[in-house]
């Protein structure tokens, strides 16, 4: 009986992880590919939830509401990108400013701080059934991943990656890096808002607080995924990020099963991110030192010395 309940929790974590994975892919795009630490995410996630919920409550087809959520996120991200590139505002600050501005905007969109979708038909309603939702979400996230992988191999996508990697070089090859940054941050927040819109439909409500701490959850997913599943190629990393998002949900579920207080979750998440950030770095420096020592030994034993 207990095993059955636990399996149920696992399934729920898996479903939620797949939906949050869309957000994590967005975070991956800014933090890793563009090298732009974008904090808009906390605001744009809620924007997505707000737009989807309001659309559905007002009788729009859920699919339209979900697409509008994506579009709303794209607009918010584009504004952050414009603030940074055209206004020369530091990337972190641009994101924070947009996040704060979005709090008011989200309240305007929702009209109140919580919208229930309990008796509404959502995009996920027809997917009720034990495994249907999990399977459909899995297919959906894999399609998004495929599209993202393809996009990052197009000419624009390559330019975007180069912008994060070596902006000076890519400017000398005729790319306006302002544009690639705006496109990247916009698309990233579109994904985040899409995830927010789906989460609202999954949970049955949109709340003004639903995006709080989302950036850290996204980062946790990216870092856990990369650390465990590797990040040699783009295709590998996008898969790792998705798995990281699912794994994160499972870790949280286990923590809750162990009767951890729900209010301590954000502390736990921050802890996970800190450890996941420090571990690989320590490991790398230890490994480099050991390689260097071995190599020095080897060279000295040969008796030869390398010329400067």
């Amino acid at each position, binding site marked *: 009986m207990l095993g059955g309940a636990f399996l149920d929790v696992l399934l729920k974590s898996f479903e939620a992880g797949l939906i949050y994975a869309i957000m994590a892919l967005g975070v991956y795009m800014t933090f890793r590919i563009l090298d732009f630490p974008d904090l808009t995410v906390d605001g744009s996630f809620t924007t997505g939830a707000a737009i989807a919920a309001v659309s559905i409550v007002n009788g729009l087809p859920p699919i339209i509401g979900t697409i509008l959520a994506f579009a709303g996120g794209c607009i918010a991200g584009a504004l952050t990108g414009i603030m940074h590139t055209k206004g020369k505002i530091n990337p972190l600050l641009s994101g924070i400013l947009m996040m704060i501005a979005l709090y008011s905007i989200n309240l305007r969109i929702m009209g109140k701080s919580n919208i229930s979708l309990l008796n509404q038909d959502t995009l996920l309603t027809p997917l009720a059934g034990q495994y249907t939702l999990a399977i459909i979400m899995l297919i959906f996230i894999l399609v998004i991943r495929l599209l993202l992988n*393809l*996009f990052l*191999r*197009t*000419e*624009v*996508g*390559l*330019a975007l*990656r*180069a912008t994060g*990697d*070596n902006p*000076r*070089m*890519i*400017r*000398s*090859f*005729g*790319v*306006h*890096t302002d544009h690639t940054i705006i496109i990247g941050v916009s698309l990233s927040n579109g994904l985040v808002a899409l995830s927010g819109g789906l989460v609202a439909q999954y949970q049955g409500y949109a709340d003004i607080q639903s995006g709080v701490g989302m950036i850290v959850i996204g980062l946790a997913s990216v870092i856990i995924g990369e650390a465990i599943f590797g990040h040699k190629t783009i295709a590998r990393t996008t898969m790792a990020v998705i798995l990281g998002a699912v794994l994160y949900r499972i870790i949280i579920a286990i923590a809750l099963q162990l009767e951890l207080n729900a209010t301590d979750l954000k502390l736990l998440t921050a802890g996970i991110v800190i450890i996941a950030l420090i571990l690989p770095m320590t490991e790398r420096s230890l490994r480099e030192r050991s390689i260097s020592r071995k190599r020095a030994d080897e060279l000295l034993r040969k008796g030869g010395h390398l010329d400067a």
Partner: protein
Amino acid sequence: MLKAEQVCKLFNAGTADEKFALQHVNLELHEGDFVTIIGSNGAGKSTLMNVISGVMIPDIGTIRIQGMDVTTMPEHVRSKWIGRVFQDPMAGTAPSMTIEENLALAFARGGRRGLRLGLGRRRREWFRSQLEDLGLGLEDRLTARVGLLSGGERQALSLLMATFMKPSLLLLDEHTAALDPARAEMVTRLTERIVRDSALTTLMVTHNMEQAIRLGNRLIMMDKGRIILDIGPDEKGILTVDKLLREFERLRGEKFVDDRVVLGS
């Protein structure tokens, strides 16, 4: 081809460190010219490169490329005509991307970047043949990350990326300075061959006098933001490092000082 007229650039305007990096610089390059620039510390060589490529806008004066006034045109627009190789081997390539992806980035220079895939089978084949010409075996490592290459390999790749789309103007900013002598020689040879084979109009800053004399059909010496010596094809043939140093002393009344300068071997 390239025409710089009365170009002035002031650094740190209005502060105690105020300094003219360029003062009334006039320079004209004709189609197919290969001009080497040499100069002491702070002579304004890199600043000249920067105002030509659009990284900086001159305070006074105009820059024309193929008759068009590009003085205030942004770098990314100007780069349609300009190929560049930087001094730092890390600067000219994207380290976390593969060799073929870097080549694809360079391939798109001057065109509109769209949602086409950056790499197709035909492009890859062409890239492979271009890399074969370098003779470094990079054609077998198309999917290796550029960050894994040695400084010399990266600089050779940067050179290929800057030149294979045949820019109207090639700018080389001390592109062999950060390499060890053997690799610097390898990159110098490649430069010589590529510039000759594609008849590229080239402006090369170097800190190596011997290299400045050996390469190109014209040599320019800069000092304190001015061009103080311009040696054409006829005299350049009989130029030696000694003569060049004596000429500098005669013009400036002081010894040529550059802590990095290499007089040649």
